[in-house]
């Protein structure tokens, strides 16, 4: 019989978060971010946290909400270009920032979830990213050693999910969510649609429930678009 991960809502789902913890947050830009969990972290006022997330949201949405309240001590990201408050806090030294290549970020999260403590990658060789890291040649090409990332909590957002914690993502909202789900000691999944057990085709599940500790039906998704680019209808 399937192991149920279902909790009543975002408050139960976020129980146990504490000051100083490390969080992973899925999403790319504002696409596929755990909106409900972020709002709950704002409400809880948890402080001095380290956030591992590809981006830092925008000034008043996504992780920008936590930055506004100075809740974040350190960000581990690959691209933070859409957030003025972020840039201000970083340049002033209020916020510690570890910028790492996007592919290394994704792979380090996967490694953390997969019990691979470290791996070699060519990305970042000869750059600031390689400082203090072991360099080794493979096939005559230099690579740097990158270590696994894990977190106290991982917050992910899926399109559909069931009580066993199985998740399906939609289109490019998948992005970092599956790897972060693997790497959280406690992984909290919020879903747009909670479906009955047995509804999801076992062949089409992106994140197996074994990686998810808590799941709940999210609500009021804004799903804000950062760059609305369109073709005119009469084209």
């Amino acid at each position, binding site marked *: 019989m399937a192991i149920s991960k279902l909790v009543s809502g975002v408050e139960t789902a976020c129980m146990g978060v504490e000051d100083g913890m490390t969080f992973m947050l899925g999403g790319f830009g504002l696409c596929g971010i755990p909106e409900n969990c972020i709002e709950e972290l704002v409400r809880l006022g948890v402080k001095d946290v380290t956030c591992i997330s590809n981006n830092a949201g925008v000034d008043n949405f996504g992780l920008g909400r936590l930055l506004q309240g100075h809740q974040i001590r350190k960000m581990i990201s690959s691209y933070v270009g859409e957030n003025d408050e972020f840039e201000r806090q970083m340049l002033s030294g209020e916020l510690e920032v570890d910028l790492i290549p996007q592919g290394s970020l994704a792979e380090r999260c996967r490694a953390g979830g997969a019990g691979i403590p470290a791996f070699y990658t060519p990305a970042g060789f000869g750059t600031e990213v390689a400082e203090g890291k072991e360099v080794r040649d493979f096939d005559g090409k230099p690579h740097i050693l990158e270590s696994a990332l894990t977190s106290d909590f991982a917050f992910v957002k899926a399109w559909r999910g069931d009580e066993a914690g199985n998740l399906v993502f939609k289109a490019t909202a998948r992005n970092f969510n599956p790897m972060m789900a693997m790497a959280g000691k406690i992984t909290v999944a919020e879903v747009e649609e909670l479906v009955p057990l047995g509804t999801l085709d076992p062949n089409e599940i992106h994140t197996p429930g074994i990686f998810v500790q808590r799941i709940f039906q999210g609500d009021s998704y804004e799903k804000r678009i950062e760059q*609305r680019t369109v073709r005119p209808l009469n084209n």
Partner: protein
Amino acid sequence: MLDKNGIATRIAQEVQDGQYVNLGIGIPTLVANHIPNGMNVEFQSENGILGMGPFPFEGSEDADLINAGKQTITALPGAVYFDSATSFAMIRGRHVQLTVLGAMEVSSTGDIANWKIPGKMVKGMGGAMDLVASADNIVVAMMHTNRAGESKLLPQCSLPLTGVACVKRVVTNLAVIDIKDGAFHLVERAPGVSVEDIKSATAGKLIIPDSVPEMNL
């Protein structure tokens, strides 16, 4: 002299039938508009799509379907969505054959800088470090000089690097330039641009062949 669309038009000529291509933010994104009809090319965006199509028609934007520039896009028949680890497996594993990206500086040894101006601007490298460390064929799309009129083709980069010895070709508003043996090699002139114009706008060592054809756009 070319505008941004002109640069994109010239770079589109670098794309070969049957290639998987990653286009960076800015000028590179425009390259997709200049691929000849009927050419079989698939665009990969590192946030998790292969088979990226044009922008959606007004009113059919989907917040869950964007490219790496966070722009709303569409998916063509045969498209695939995947997670970020798989996306960079494609990139790092050299399955993506051509990468086009912008730069703030390029050196005559093929180094590239495009992610940080210390103390001033820190946007992050995004996927650029993975891309330049991996792709077999890396083409830089940029203006030949910066806003202050200074050359962006240098003997050595002054800004923090994105990658070393990786850029093979640069297409600017003035010229097509190859990088090999520690020097820039002038390949083509933009329409109406003289060899002398290019020479004076290039700070790094520039090898000029006897004959420099004008781009055929």
